[in-house]
């Protein structure tokens, strides 16, 4: 029965019309990766999307297959760190954070201090590193904000740090400064809020 179900899933993935953009060999390889992922409870959609990205961008079949295999492995690592209850968006964001250099320990700690969903917190961590903030600084900052900050506050924090970096601030220092500036407002219930009375910007 289980084998039949797995075969059925393989067929479903292979018959996904979106994959027709791939040549037959690549389509088959991608379907196999997706099937394996699904077999261990990992989301399939990110794998499909990565293959479609490669197809649209004209990447070779080999490159597409390498990318989806790497993604499947990383999704597995993310799931080991966040736990089996992690959603697909959380796992994708966790992959980005891990690839950016965040350690599994940081992700596990985040899981412990913040109510789900963790998607935005993980994304902000990855995006800060993409801006040049050292991974450990980004991790420390997000962990400090995570217990109380809303998703929108984390996004504001990231934008503020990026703006300071664009103006020439060293990325690590920019993160510390913004974090310390926000720490003063913990009592207001919003760890990062330059002025609690100011209407939120669009």
């Amino acid at each position, binding site marked *: 029965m289980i084998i039949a179900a797995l075969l059925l899933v393989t067929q479903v993935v292979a018959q996904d019309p979106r994959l027709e953009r791939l040549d037959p060999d690549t389509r088959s390889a991608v379907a196999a990766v997706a099937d394996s992922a699904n077999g261990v409870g990992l989301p399939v959609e*990110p794998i499909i*999307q990565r293959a479609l990205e490669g197809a649209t*961008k004209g990447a070779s079949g080999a490159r597409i297959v390498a990318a989806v295999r790497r993604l499947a492995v990383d999704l597995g690592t993310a799931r080991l760190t966040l736990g089996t209850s992690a959603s697909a968006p959380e796992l994708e964001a966790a992959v*980005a954070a891990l690839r950016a250099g965040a350690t599994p320990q940081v992700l596990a700690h985040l899981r412990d201090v913040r109510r789900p969903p963790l998607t935005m917190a993980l994304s902000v961590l990855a995006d800060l590193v993409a801006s040049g903030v050292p991974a450990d600084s980004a991790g420390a900052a997000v962990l400090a904000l995570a217990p109380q900050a809303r*998703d929108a506050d984390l996004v504001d924090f990231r934008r503020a740090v990026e703006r300071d970096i664009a103006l020439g601030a060293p990325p690590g220092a920019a993160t510390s400064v913004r974090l310390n500036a926000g720490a003063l407002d913990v009592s207001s219930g919003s760890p990062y809020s330059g002025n609690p009375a100011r209407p939120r910007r669009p």
Partner: protein
Amino acid sequence: MFEPGDETVERLIQHLRRPVAMDAGLDARVMREIAQASSPRRRVWPLPWSVAAAAAVLGAVLVARPWARNATSRADTLQFVLIAPQAASVSLVGDFNDWDPARSPMQTAHGIWATALRLAPGRYRYAFLVNGVEWRADPGAPAAKDDEFGTPSSVVTVGGRGS
């Protein structure tokens, strides 16, 4: 009139006269606020394109902001903007539309290309495809660092409930 001891103040003045670059996204925020006030009936979708023209700004600028939040849904409507006066066509392509350039062609007015999409919570990779051949990341959005296919991409994240 120059006096001894004024050197310090003159140096300060020259320092203060240096150009200060403001956030180019401010233009779009101003125009959007004006548009909201100008519309006879407050609309969420689509954005009036004549108002979307922040104009006279060279280079690519992104505004990817929640345009409105539906209180009964977890999805957000996000607006994507690219300023590309020389482009003949621009498509928004990403994880949210199966990387299909035909799904989200962008509309233009005065060289400003824009479209809006409703997105469920998640993290999405995307890019702009200009004239069907040139991939451009969104300069106003975080970069997608794991760029496995040799072209630039950006990332947008939509938070879940409580964001």
